[in-house]
């Protein structure tokens, strides 16, 4: 269990952000339209985040804002970013759309037209779909964490960091290589399109390629109170591999596997709270559980091809202020921010179109876990997603440890037909 | 003086239900309020019990003002009401209903003896003490309602239309019990549409018309009054 080091309450209430935003908000409520104070003589570039900070989707937004602020502060503290002869301070401008399409449109326009941001980072799904027509016309550089948002009509929408759900394939590939005797698998996932079904289709393709038969795929809603029935029904199929394709309910699902006496292998898309899982089951039970998201203090993330400065330090400073709030998006949004910095420096400009051009011009763009490739035309109709190596993580002795890096790109290039077939089977959009 | 209402006004929204009623009840008295529907009889009882707030006027019971007291405090002072339409708790048993009548009391021994005396008045309730109140007949429910009120050991018992919808023979039975209760020293204020019955039972009577006291006096003299005869006795 990831315990908060000191009293959670003192910290939360003592946070400057809390007071600052409260005052700003009350001020805004009282004197709507009061001009914002800004530092006059420093050049500032604003990066927008149009994300959910309230409601059910907040965990996929807020930690990203926290992470981005850490990275931006680090860059600013180091003297800012030099772009085309100017030095810029980076400022994050965020808007809470609460995963509501209307507010997403409003927030996007506010960020672009009033805050004059040079890039808008978004989560993805319907909130992105609703801004696409306007954003594309405006030629606004927009990023998503769901590459499946990319269509032939979205030239200004890129997914440079998370390649959900493509990265899932490496874990299955690795597992099958290490355990050639695995024959069957079952998949459990949420019944939504963006996360659940995309991920299930990818996993199924990966299993097929690895020669493992998928016996059953269970799609459940977000209203599940108790996973016992679903897990019971899946275990009745006697699978060798139990695969969790979405991350929201991993802990209660693994807990059920543990109690229901499951003996086989477990694969998960993410397992952000794996310490909780261990606390609820046992170290032995989760030993060897495969997933895709490393801890940022993993020794294998130091040096080499990793394109994230000081992951360990980042991890530490995030946990200092936001213990227990870590999720994959905490580093994914900052990672996109870093991609932007790289591209802006290459372009020598902060203008969205120029930055995008520089991004796309780079044949081997920096991806968090090593050099990447632009990909996606075969699946979504446009090469606007960066995919590259992705770590295979497994739990060893109670810690998530990177086992090895594998190329998602290679897998996709070889097996895109199988992937397309599985996507089609689930009525998912493909080019 | 046990109870006195002085110039009591009650309004529902904007409509005046009582327009200055003054009534007096002596200790051990048996008073009846008669009048047609809407004359304010029920409202008078409801106001005494604290279910309605008077907009003007004063209600005193044993030299204490009831005007601003909530129903539970008024009950504790010794004023119990048998509401119109009986209003027994249908999903509770007879015994539970009776115990709720003694809700404000703590003296278990006294409650027990009162329970016995209620069963003495109404032996049929004893037979049915474990049944749900909704299984009782109309007359039995009325008995339960009276018994429940008696369980609070009242000094003053207010009864709102106890004969409503009951067979004459049952009305007769209840009338007898009311006289018995009164003889034991409990003062009674009886609201009755059956003026004949009411004036026969009571010592004194008030005739209410549109929120006012139109006539008052000895029950026997009221029964002889020409106006009362034509208007309420249908003779």
């Amino acid at each position, binding site marked *: 269990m990831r315990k908060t080091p000191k009293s959670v309450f003192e910290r939360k209430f003592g946070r400057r952000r809390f007071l600052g*935003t409260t005052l700003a*908000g*009350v001020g805004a409520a009282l004197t709507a339209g009061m001009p914002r104070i800004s530092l006059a003589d420093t050049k500032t570039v604003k990066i927008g985040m149009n994300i959910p*900070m309230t*409601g059910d989707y907040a965990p996929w937004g807020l930690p990203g804002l926290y992470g981005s602020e850490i990275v931006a502060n680090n860059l600013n503290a180091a003297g800012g970013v030099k772009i085309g002869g100017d030095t810029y301070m980076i400022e994050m401008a965020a808007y809470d759309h609460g995963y509501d399409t209307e507010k997403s449109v409003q*927030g996007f326009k506010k960020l672009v037209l009033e805050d004059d941001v040079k890039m808008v980072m978004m989560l993805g799904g319907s909130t992105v779909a609703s801004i696409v027509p*306007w954003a594309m*016309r405006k030629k606004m550089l927009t990023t998503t964490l769901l590459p499946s948002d990319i269509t032939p009509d979205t030239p200004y929408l890129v997914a440079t960091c998370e390649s959900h759900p493509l990265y899932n394939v490496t874990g299955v590939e690795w597992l099958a290589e290490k355990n050639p005797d695995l024959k069957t698998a079952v998949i459990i996932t949420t019944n939504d*399109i963006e996360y659940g079904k995309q991920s299930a289709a990818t996993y199924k393709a990966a299993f097929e390629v690895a020669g493992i038969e998928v016996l059953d795929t269970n799609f459940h809603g977000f209203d599940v109170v108790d996973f016992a029935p679903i897990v019971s029904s899946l275990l009745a199929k006697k699978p060798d591999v139990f695969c969790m394709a979405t991350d929201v309910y991993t802990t209660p699902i693994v807990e059920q596997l543990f109690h229901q006496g499951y003996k086989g292998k477990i694969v998960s898309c993410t397992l952000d709270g794996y310490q909780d899982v261990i606390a609820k089951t046992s170290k032995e039970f989760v030993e060897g559980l495969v997933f895709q998201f490393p801890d940022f203090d993993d020794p294998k993330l130091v040096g080499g091809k990793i394109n994230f400065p000081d992951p360990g330090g980042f991890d530490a400073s995030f946990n200092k202020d936001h213990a227990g709030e870590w999720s994959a998006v905490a580093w994914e949004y900052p990672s996109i921010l870093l991609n932007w910095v790289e591209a802006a420096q290459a372009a020598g400009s902060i203008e969205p179109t120029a930055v995008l051009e520089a991004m796309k011009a780079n044949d081997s763009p920096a991806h968090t876990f090593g050099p990447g490739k632009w990909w996606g035309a075969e699946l979504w109709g446009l090469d606007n997603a960066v995919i590259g190596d992705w770590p295979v993580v497994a739990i060893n002795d109670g810690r998530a440890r990177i086992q090895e890096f594998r190329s998602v790109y290679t897998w996709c290039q070889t097996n895109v037909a199988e992937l397309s077939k599985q996507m089609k089977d689930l*009525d998912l959009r493909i080019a | 003086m046990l109870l006195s209402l002085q110039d009591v006004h009650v309004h529902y929204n904007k409509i005046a239900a009582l327009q200055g009623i003054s009534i007096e009840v002596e200790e051990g008295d048996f008073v009846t309020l008669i009048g047609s529907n809407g004359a304010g009889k029920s409202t008078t009882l409801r106001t005494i019990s604290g279910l309605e707030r008077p907009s003007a006027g004063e209600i005193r019971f044993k030299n204490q003002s009831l005007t601003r007291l909530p129903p539970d405090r008024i009950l504790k002072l010794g004023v119990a009401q048998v509401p119109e339409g009986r209003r027994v708790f249908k999903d509770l048993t007879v015994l539970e209903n009776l115990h709720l009548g003694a809700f404000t009391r703590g003296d278990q021994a006294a409650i027990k003896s009162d329970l016995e005396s209620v069963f003495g008045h109404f032996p049929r309730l004893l037979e049915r003490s474990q049944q749900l109140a909704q299984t009782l007949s109309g007359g039995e429910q009325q008995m339960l309602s009276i018994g429940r009120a008696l369980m609070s050991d009242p000094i003053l018992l207010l009864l709102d239309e106890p004969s409503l919808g009951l067979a004459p023979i049952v009305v007769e039975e209840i009338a007898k019990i009311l006289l018995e209760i009164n003889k034991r020293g409990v003062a009674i204020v009886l609201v009755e549409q059956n003026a004949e019955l009411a004036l026969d039972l009571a010592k004194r009577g008030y005739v209410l018309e549109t929120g006012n006291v139109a006539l008052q006096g000895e029950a026997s003299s009221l029964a002889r009054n020409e106006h009362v005869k034509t208007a309420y006795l249908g003779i």
Partner: protein
Amino acid sequence: MSKVQLSQIAGIVAMLVGLMVLPNYLKYHHQDFLIFLTINILVVVSYRLMTLTGEWSLIHIVMMGVGAYTSALLSKNLGFPVWISMPMAGVGAGLIAALLCFPLFRMTQFYFLIGSFAVGEAIRLAWIFFVKPFGGSSGVSSIPPPELFAIDFMDPIPYFYLVLAVVTVCLVILYRIENSRIGLTLHAVHWKSSLSESVGVNTWKYRSLAFIVASVFVGIAGALKVHYLGNVTPHQFGVGTMVFVLIWVIVGGYNTFFGPVLGAIVLSILDESLRDLEEYRPAIYGALLIAAIMFMPKGLESVPPSIRAWFKAPATPPPG
């Protein structure tokens, strides 16, 4: 009487003109805000027609979704022009509502409230479950905007004019319904349904009528929304959204035609101005709701008359 009407008409015309120039003076994202707010006004006013009969439903926003999906699928998949698919949205929502009358109006009051929620939720789950044609949880995207000459309806101002025109027409119709014989009968059904029946009012028919008409208009509102957003998802029409409609109507006040409108406008602006509070916004919003209910129990609509009364008070002696 005609004098009053004249000044009223003048007032309405002035307001419309004001509304037409308003977006030009707004910040860009507030133009969008204005569009959604105008659509939401149609949502609450049509909901009020439903509440006239005394029944509060939780299915209204789902009927909006029915309209939204109808228009989206007709225009995107079947190539209907938006000018046809939008009215068809109203027809679609009205038809579904007509079907639902049979089970729903066996219930009244609280049972109706929850029953309507269950039916609505079942419809919403069907959108999620049947990926063809509803697109599952991600819904339908790339819904075309309306086309007319060279007008660019992706630009907020022209679209606002379109919304303003449609919503104004709808509001006029709803206002006329409320102030017609039918509105009077709906009131009667609410307050004394047995008395209404005894003078020959078929209360079931009038309850159904109110539900169907409300659904038609909220369906149109749904269509207006999707052709601006370009996509529609089941998520938009969940009970969370419905709760906001309830809040607007109750806090605004439901005794007059304009109460819900006032509620929607004031609370939406409030909500938007609190957005800088980020994740703390709902708490402040919740506190303001409680304050509104405690201090304005008759709704925001009770405020203007009491201000007027306060100003007039010295001139006329108090009544009674």
